[in-house]
């Protein structure tokens, strides 16, 4: 297949060209540092975007808007339960996974029982999760256990530990998407849910598992992000709403559903981070930075879009 036909090629081209700009302005060693930072932050983007991508692939209207609230609730509860104790690391992690499972199941229950579009279901439920997080901890910031912070910020050479872990997860998910029955089912449901049902695919079970997986990944992301940034905060998930969707789409996954890829997520996550960094490097004020970020997202979409 022609390389330009690969859906993820644009995100990677953008990433490389922006990095070249940054490196040519600030020099090679600064360029390497930026890359390390991009990998650190990009890892969190990718972690939530994997879940979002599977959800988006389920077909038109499928998107999870409760990711930020899920991250916040899971990390808030985990930090308070662990209370900085390293002995509680594993129980804390299990609690995070349990919260993710619950949230995913609740989201799906709303979608299926109320027959409402996922966008509205996850939007309304996210208010509930956020309220629960506020009520549970009143916005107090509890420090993460030392070991968690060390792991979340740790590096091997210039490569962040967490990035390696998420990279392995990405490869795994690549196989899940293309080679397992679950992945095949998601793609089938996204292209034609009725045909999928008549081909014997358990449509609702597939959707259920996908929403649960998305919530669990978001919860885990919250756990490590709290470790990375010294504790959970109520607004910690804020930028992840837009970012998770932007990364999925810039990465070449079809918003119409039924068509997804994993390499694009990394390309898009690095691209988004490097973009902001480059605009900072150029010394632009916040206003211009926002305008350019938005304009470039739109431009990327417009270029990769198909002409009618």
């Amino acid at each position: 297949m022609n390389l330009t036909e690969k859906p993820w090629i644009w995100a990677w081209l953008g990433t490389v060209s922006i990095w070249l700009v940054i490196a040519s302005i600030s020099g090679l060693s600064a360029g390497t540092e930026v890359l390390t930072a991009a990998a650190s932050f990009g890892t969190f983007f990718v972690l939530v975007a994997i879940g979002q991508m599977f959800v988006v692939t389920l077909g038109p209207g499928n998107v999870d808007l409760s990711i930020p609230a899920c991250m916040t609730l899971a990390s808030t509860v985990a930090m308070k339960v662990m209370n900085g104790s390293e002995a509680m690391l594993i129980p804390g992690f299990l609690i995070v996974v349990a919260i993710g499972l619950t949230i995913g199941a609740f989201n799906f229950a709303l979608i299926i029982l109320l027959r409402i579009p996922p966008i509205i279901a996850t939007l309304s439920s996210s208010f509930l999760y956020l309220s629960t997080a506020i009520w549970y901890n009143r916005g107090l910031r509890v420090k993460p256990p030392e070991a968690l912070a060390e792991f979340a910020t740790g590096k091997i050479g210039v490569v962040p530990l967490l990035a390696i872990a998420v990279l392995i997860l990405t490869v795994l998910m690549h196989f899940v998407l293309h080679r397992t029955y679950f992945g095949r089912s998601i793609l089938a449901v996204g292209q034609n849910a009725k045909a999928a049902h008549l081909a014997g695919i358990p449509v609702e079970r597939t959707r259920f598992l996908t929403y649960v997986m998305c919530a669990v990944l978001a919860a885990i992301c919250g756990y490590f992000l709290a470790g990375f940034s010294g504790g959970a905060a109520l607004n910690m998930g804020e930028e992840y709403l837009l970012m998770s969707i932007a990364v999925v789409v810039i990465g070449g996954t079809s918003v119409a559903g039924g068509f997804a890829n994993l390499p694009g997520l990394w390309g898009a996550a690095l691209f988004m981070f490097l973009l902001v960094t480059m605009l900072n490097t150029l010394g632009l004020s916040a206003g211009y930075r926002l305008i350019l970020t938005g304009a470039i997202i739109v431009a990327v979409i417009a270029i990769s879009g198909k002409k009618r």
Partner: protein
Amino acid sequence: MINDLPVVDVHGVGKSFGAVNALQDAHLVVQPGECVGLVGHNGAGKSTLMNILSGVLSPDTGTISFAGEAITARYGVSEAKQFGLRCVFQELSLCPNLTVAENARITHPQIRGFGWRNDASELIKNWLDEVFPDNGIKGDDVVGDLTIARRQMVEISRAFSSLDEQVRLVILDEPTSSLDKISADQLLTFVKKFTAQGGSVILISHMLREVLSTSDRIVVMRDGTMVADDATENFDRDRLVREMGSVLAEDAEEASAETARANTARVIQIPAKDGIDLNVFQGEIVGFAGIAGQGQTEKLIQIFDASNGKVNAVNIDNAAAFVAGDRQAAGVFPGWSIEKNISIASVRMMVQRYLIDPLQEINISNEWKERLGIRTDDLSNNILSLSGGNQQKVLFARALGSPAQIVLMDDPMRGVDIGTKQDVYAILKQEAENGRTFVWYTTEMDELKHCDYVYVFRDGEAVAELPSHKVTEASILNASFDPATAA
């Protein structure tokens, strides 16, 4: 404006998509007051020709003139409308969120200003009553709430409707595919009336009987060009089929004398609710008949869901596979290759250590490509690169390739050419002899002759069962309308 110039004169028109010559040196003349029947296999070039006439596509070569006026390069959908040309396309093209009257307004921009709603409502109702008397459709019915048959009636009536402009030529592409017999007859009667008044019609249909009974002249297309063009009285069914280039259907098939049910295990049993018990035995081909939309499809889906343990009203022990008739809505995965479209119902069995074995996937696709004669040189091509008939074969391959021993078929031959049909009939017979069971809903009389047993449906339930030797058009129609006499 009286002239005896042809309404349409297509002269030597050609059109190709990439390397494929969809149309070459096509000729078609339609005179005022004439109904021309256009027949041919799927992929013979009929749709391309119609899309060119209606202005959706522009031809590569040749000329087209309307009433003697050659069309220009700027010819498009709105120019076609101005010439008085209307099309009823195969897929329904009404807006489901609008009312019947509002849909009429969409095609009549001159209905506007104060009181437009009444004008539109009156216009469409008049034409509905003209074409389909006693239709029971109201102007403020929302189209999405209507049955498919009624939607098609609205669509057809809308195409004929006119205010002050003259409708000179109406192209009907498989207009009766969703209509029951009565409505279909009403339409064909109206077509004769319309042409008697000087209008022209191009009738595209796979229902050869309709074409033979309604049109004045028949044009046969094959491989993108016209192979026959003659007055209807010079045609009969055999000649049509011969010209289309397909094997003559073996009508002389010996009707098996036995009337008893197969002497095998019962694989499906549905206790009666209002109608009669429904039983299917292993190795049988059981037909579902009756007027379209009497719950046959729903029953098939119910059986299918029961095979997955989701419904209790049906007793079925084996796994079932489904062949959809509505390819776009319920069959094809448009983003996938032919291979993945075939294997999707089987991949669950090909999982080894969590991963699908790609070799098995290729094997099963290749096997069924060969057996059904799917015309492609590469199974990794996108499914949409196939013609409609071949896409349907892919859906058959999907079901037959799966391990399921029961195959449910939802009027799968809708709009499929005779050649494809013959290929599939042969395979079905072979598979049934090997012990596979088929439940086959069909709207085509001819296909019921392939069934061992036929259930006739009315109001969502089976109301009559007919062994194969009793299956005639008369007995089916009889049961469709009055269950008491057929029982």
